[in-house]
């Protein structure tokens, strides 16, 4: 939405209706394809909770390295965005 917010509202509405029709079809045929979710949950208890905690710890440890690399990469990108050189390549608003 933030990338098409210059559209006039009378034209945007039919466009969005068409878009949501496509999305509805997509979700019907493949419910796992959503990029946004609403989730209601109750936590696991007892042994299941302990197993979940162990599994979560393992995942966290594995991902710890991955996110630090990602964070460092993006920090460099951020610093690049601050430089005057970057402005040459920035897309026009």
């Amino acid at each position: 939405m933030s990338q098409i917010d210059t559209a006039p509202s009378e034209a945007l509405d039919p466009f969005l209706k068409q878009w949501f029709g496509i999305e509805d079809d997509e979700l019907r045929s493949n419910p796992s394809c959503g990029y946004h979710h609403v989730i209601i949950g109750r936590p696991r208890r007892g042994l299941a909770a302990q197993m979940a905690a162990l599994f979560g710890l393992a995942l966290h440890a594995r991902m710890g390295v991955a996110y630090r690399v990602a964070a460092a990469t993006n920090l460099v990108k951020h610093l690049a965005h601050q430089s005057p050189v970057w402005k040459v390549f920035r897309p026009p608003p």
Partner: protein
Amino acid sequence: MHDGHEPPTNSTTAVAEQFWDHHHGNTESPRFWMAQALCRSAINRRVTGNPNEWPLEWFARLYGPLSKGLSLGCGVGNLERSMLDIGMCEEITGIDFYSKSIEIARERAQEAGYGDRLNYRVGDLNHLRIPSATYDVVFIHQALHHVVAIERLLARVARSLKPEGLVFVDEWTGPSMTGWTPEMVAVQSALYREVPREWRRYSEFVLPISADDLTEGIRSAAFLPAVRNFFGRSRSVPTAVTSRRF
């Protein structure tokens, strides 16, 4: 329980804090996609079955009223005031990383007459300390995609809930900031080119990653598996999709 200010943990989160302290009003703009009337109707319909019923109203109707709530990534406090307005909770604690947002949330709680029922504090969700078996419900609304330590946070959230407590999450679950493959970008770019040129803010599709907020989508793809791990009895409804056809 730790109630003090937890400072930024590294330069990435410090940059993000600076960004959100200056852009805390972003989600209140009528241009924010979730505030657009047709988008709102579509999300409501997919979650609740009714285009006019918001997911949180639906949640309150099914599970409320409850006593103590916790709202993580509360921003300027819109969710908490709405929950008290509809009688979902008796009291709610809101936590956000951004001090300016917390300041505004406190002011608005006072203005709404909820000063004694809404408590706010600054806290980093990556290192959150919350009491065990205390809350009936924990709300996480568009905040988890800024969190790196998703598993640690969800483990603590699970422990903080009473035995029959609930978690309500409304969240971006798409690719992590570094997970956009060339194929994904190609699909999005093709879709964007279908939009009339005069409507486009940019000449080409721009990834939903902000150079000014380095936590945006930092580990969003890890979120659904982590929720399934900690919250076995869960119900998940997709609310929006990026089409893979075209």
